[in-house]
């Protein structure tokens, strides 16, 4: 007589490589972009103190290079690049933070990554424009520890929700398979 397979025993392995912060001890990896040396040092420390892994670059161009979006590199080696958040200054020489935001949202590989714009100027049309383009948030400089904590908490919640949804989906698939097997009287 065939052994009755319970749903929990079925291994529905997913091809989805979603790494989950809820189940792992991975830190949030933040890419910070700012042309000011003082601000780079400051944001790096803010993020480290908030238990984030940080990569800091001094221009939008370098950010694109890092992400492999500058057209010079193929996507080799960038599949493993896991960035959870991009924080960029708005006013930078060359490419602005706004232009960087647009480039990221145009990329299929990185458009899901939340992008936060930082600016020392409280200009409403600027803020609107950034949010319309898909910015996750707009922070007034100098950025506060509380701002970073709030961001990190909301990102962790989003990841946890994604993880829970994935697990729920697996449960449903397992249950579905179990029902099929039962009907087939295996």
């Amino acid at each position: 007589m065939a052994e009755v397979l319970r749903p929990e025993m079925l291994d529905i392995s997913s091809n989805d490589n979603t790494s989950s912060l809820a189940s792992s001890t991975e830190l949030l990896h933040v890419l910070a972009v700012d042309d000011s040396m003082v601000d780079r040092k400051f944001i790096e420390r803010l993020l480290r103190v908030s238990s984030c892994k940080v990569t800091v670059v001094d221009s939008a161009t370098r950010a694109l290079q890092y992400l492999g979006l500058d057209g010079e590199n193929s996507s080799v080696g960038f599949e493993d690049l896991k960035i959870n958040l991009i924080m960029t200054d708005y006013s930078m020489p060359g490419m602005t933070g706004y232009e960087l935001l647009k480039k990221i949202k145009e990329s299929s590989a990185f458009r899901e990554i939340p992008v936060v714009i930082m600016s020392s100027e409280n200009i409403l049309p600027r803020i609107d424009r950034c949010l319309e383009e898909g910015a996750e948030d707009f922070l007034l400089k100098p950025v506060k520890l509380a701002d970073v904590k709030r961001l990190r908490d909301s990102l962790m919640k989003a990841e946890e929700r994604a993880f829970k949804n994935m697990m729920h989906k697996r449960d449903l698939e397992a249950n579905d398979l179990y029902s099929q097997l039962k009907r087939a009287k295996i």
Partner: protein
Amino acid sequence: MDTLIAQLQRQFRDYTISLYHQGFLDDQFTELKKLQDECSPDFVAEVVTLFFEDCEKLISNMARALDQTGNVDFKLVGSSVHQLKGSSSSVGAKRVKGLCVTLKECCDSQNFEGCVRCLQQVDIEYKTLKAKLQDLFNLEQQIVQAGGRIPQVDI
């Protein structure tokens, strides 16, 4: 009887409070101190050092631009003062930041005399702050060398 450590700590506390009350420093400097700990014990000193380097570089750029008599690039001066305003804001250099605001206004209205005067003030102000912070850091060092702890100062 007051020990050396207690004396130094009192000096440190009083000096810190005076820097805030006289408007040299604001809240943001307090935020910087919060980010300093045993893992990063020189964080504040490192950031302000970068700031003073910024001051030197940007002020020199602006002075050069203002020196081009008859052909002053006010856009350049404007973007330099914007940068300086940003970094002074990030470290809590309240007076320097205030002067940057004034300088920016002179620049926007292409007020040459105003720019020159203001830039001189910015130069004096950052050097004053630099000296005062050096005194503050020296006091910290003295406390530590005497075997004491640097007191937390609530403004």
